[in-house]
Each structure stands twice: as C-alpha cells, then as structure tokens.
C-alpha cells in the first residue's frame, strides 16, 4: 500500500513538472520593456498591454531600466509565474539573446518589438522599425536644409542597441558624401533627454559654432534643444530627432525641431500581441523579422501626423 502511495506521489510530481512546459494554456502575457523612463516606450508597452487585454489575456509590464541583469530577472520571474508569452523590447542586441533563449527553452515564445536581438532563431518573431531607411530620408532632408555645408554634432543612443547603429549608419550613408558637412563631435547620450542636455552643454564649450545636431531619438533631440536654448543658440542651430514622440511633433509645429522620423509603435505593439494570440491558437510559421516603415516628418507635412503615428 505504501509503495502504491509513493508511485502515485511520483506520478503527481512528474505531472506538475511537465505542466510548467505546457505554457500554451496560459492566459497571461508579460511585456518586458527596456525602460519606462521615456514616454515612447511607455506608449509601446501600454499599447501592447491594451491589445493583449483586448484579446483576452492578463498582462503585466516589466521595466528593465536599461539593465540586462534586471531584464534577466524579469524573464526568470515571468517564466516562473506562468506567463505564456513575452512581448519584448530588448535592452541589448547581444546581451538580451540569452534571456530570449531562456524563455524559448522554457516553451515561452518571445516577440520582439522595435529593438532587435542578434539571433535569427531565438525570438518567435521580431517586429522592428526600419530605422536605416528612416535615417536615409532624414539624412537627405538634413543635407538639403543645410545646403550641403556646416558643422554638426551627432548624439547616439545606447551603443549596445542595433537601432542606434542602424540610425547612425542610415544617416551617414548619405551625409558622409558631402565633405562640406563636418561632424565635430559624436557622443552617446543613451537615448536620454537629461543626458543629451548635459552632453551637448559640454560639447558646446569646445564647439560653440555648430550649425546642427542629429539625435538618435526625440528625447535626446528635446534635451539638445534645451541645451541650445540655454546657450542662446536655438534660433541658429537645427535639431533633428527620430521617433515621432509627442513633444517632438509639437516642437516641429513650433519650429524648434527641424525634422523627425515617425515610427509606428502602435503597429509594432499590436502586431506583437496579435502574434502571441495566434501562437496560443497554434500558429508557428511567423516571419523571423518584419520591418515597419518609418516616415519623415517636417514642417511641410506635419499636418498628416500626430504623436506616435498618422492622423486617422
């Protein structure tokens, strides 16, 4: 009798263990984002959560605070807490791969939004802004408005993020053909508004005669504008951003920012949530990567756009 009880106990334990793998039945979706210290990512996370809820899932947003160690903890917590899928905005293209693999090995699919991980088979799908093309269009507008000459500063985003380099490379793929345009400083400000302000204030000490600042996102563009306004140079120096954030769209309308490239976080977030839902329903043939087109926004076409997208 005792032996029979032990066997039953072992069978129950095995069933409990195997049950962890069967996440397909879970009705919970985790949203892990690189930072909630930037309104753009808040919008991305909240839109993904809203779409997942609309599709009938319980959701929770995790803030990685641009820290891969914290991101790793979030993945462990999400897997242990029985989340069936993760909608993910990575902190580091290389450093986040292990987290995605951890989830994949636990049977939890990961759908990347906006930012990429450097692995073609870790995530179930990656829905990414076509940053390079957006910055080629931005670069062309930059060259035209600068009349092919002048001194400029580039503020980069997080150096470990592919978007940082896709944007920078797209911009330089065009601008570098014009020898009259001289980049006097290139520095990272981690996609952060306050840091961008501090970095540009310090660059202005050494290069007070710049004509333009190209920033890898709108938060840095707004920080750069603040630094220029404080130095009394905002009228002369043109600022270019990237994202299509609310304050940058307002600033283009007011003539403070020259241009930005509009990303569509709503499309990326909703597609990721939709894919997670389809995964639960049995779909497995997702495209590994889907670029989402980015559009140039200037004072000439601002009437077509609102923050984070197009006017309906």
């Amino acid at each position: 009798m005792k032996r029979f009880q032990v066997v039953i106990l072992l069978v129950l334990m095995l069933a409990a263990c195997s049950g962890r793998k069967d996440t397909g039945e879970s009705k919970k979706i985790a949203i892990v984002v690189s930072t909630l210290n930037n309104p753009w990512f808040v919008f991305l996370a909240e839109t993904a959560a809203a779409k997942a809820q609309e599709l009938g899932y319980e959701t929770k947003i995790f803030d990685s605070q641009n820290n891969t160690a914290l991101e790793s903890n979030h993945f462990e917590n999400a897997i242990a807490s029985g989340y069936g899928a993760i909608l993910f905005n990575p902190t580091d293209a290389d450093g986040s791969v292990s987290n995605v693999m951890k989830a994949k090995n636990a049977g939890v699919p990961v759908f990347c939004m906006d930012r990429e991980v450097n692995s073609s088979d870790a995530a179930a799908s990656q829905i990414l802004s076509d940053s390079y093309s957006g910055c080629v269009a931005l670069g062309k507008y930059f060259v035209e408005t600068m009349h092919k000459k002048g001194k400029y500063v580039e503020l980069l985003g997080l150096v470990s993020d592919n978007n940082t380099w896709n944007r920078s490379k797209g911009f330089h793929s065009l601008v570098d053909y014009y020898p009259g345009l001289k980049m006097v400083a290139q520095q990272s400000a981690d996609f952060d508004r306050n840091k961008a302000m501090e970095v540009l204030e310090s660059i202005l000490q050494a290069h007070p005669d710049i004509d333009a600042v190209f920033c890898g996102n709108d938060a840095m563009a707004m920080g750069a504008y603040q630094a220029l306004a404080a130095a009394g140079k905002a009228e002369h120096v043109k600022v270019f951003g990237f994202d299509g954030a609310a304050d940058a769209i307002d600033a283009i309308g007011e003539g403070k920012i020259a241009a930005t490239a509009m990303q569509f976080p709503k499309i990326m977030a909703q597609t990721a949530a939709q894919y997670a839902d389809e995964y639960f329903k049995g779909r497995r043939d997702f495209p590994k990567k889907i670029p989402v087109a980015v559009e140039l926004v200037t004072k000439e076409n601002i009437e077509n756009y609102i923050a984070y997208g197009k006017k309906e």
Partner: protein
Amino acid sequence: MFKKAFKYAILPVIIILTAYNSVYFKKLDEVKAAAAPEFDAAAYARNYFDNKLPEALNKAVEINQLAAMLQKDEEKTFSTHSNALGIGNIRYFLVKGEGTITAVDENNVSVLAAADGSEKPVKIAIEYVFGNAVRDASGLININEFENTMDFNNVSAEINKIIRGEVLPSFKAKAEKGKRMRFVGALELNQEHLNFDDPEIIPVKLEIVN
C-alpha cells in the same frame, strides 16, 4: 631525499606546465572571425545587381501606365505592382519609361515620359541615390536570410554605390535638355498619402537614345 627533490623540483614544473597549458590567449578579432564569417555585402550586392535584378527589370511598369492604374484602382495597383519587405505605407515599384529631357540640375534630370498618347513628368535622381528602393522594389531579397539588419542595410549601401559608380557617370556626361532617353528604376510611394505629381526615380538603367 627523492621526496624532497620531487617536492622542490618536479612538482613546480608540473604545476607550471599544467597552468601554462590550461590558459590560451587569442586575439578577439580572430575568435570573432572564426565564430561568424563576416558578411560580404559588396559581393552580395554585385550578385544581385548583375544576376538577379535584370530579370526583375523586365517586369517594370511603364510610368504612364502606372499613373493610369493608380487613378483607376489605387489599392489593386499597390497590391499587384509594388513590393515592400514589411508593414507600413512606404512601398516600392519598378518603373520604366522613355521621353525627352526637359531640365538638368544638380540633383535630378527631369524627363517628360511619353507613351500611347500620355505624358508624365518624372525626375531621375542623379544626386541622392540612397536608401532601400532598388533593394526592395524587386521583391527578390528576403530579410530573413540575414542574421542582423545591419548586414541587410549594408546591401542597400553597396547597391547604391554600384549605381553611383557605374550607371550615373556616363549618363551625366551625356544628359542634356532636349535629348531623348530611356530609364528603368525604382520608385518609392506612400500608399496612405499618395503623391504622384512629381515622382523621383532611383535609376538602375539609363540610356540616351539620340
């Protein structure tokens, strides 16, 4: 005696040998190169431009025909004749035409393309030959073949380099107002906010007819 000799002479040698053979130093560049052979974007672009793109160019739509089709049924024209690698409003067409050069400036050659009694003014880009139009308009390249998007974007940069280096110089030398020319190229259009008044074509093949 032997024990002492072992302790003071042979043992340190064994420890040093073991330690020496346990640690290897290699240049990070070499390890990275061995782990993932670097993608050759220039070779990929050359193969695409010489061997794949020419066949796709045969399917290019005549620019006046495209104008008529867009006027008749915008959605159907985009779904039938344009390509894009992802989601969004920006899509690319392969287009062709023949006409008279009406102006030449620093950035563009303006052409009045004529066919079947219709005329359409277009601009051929001769300065800003950049972006993904030529890579994406054919629909032949799949983003999922690439490990990361930087490799994929480098393909565009290399294709554009071929056009700037091999297609434009001889054409620019001969392009003059009043001359007739033929063109085949890629055109970017925004499906939601369509502006077809003054299309700018990124050239792939250019030819002065007379």
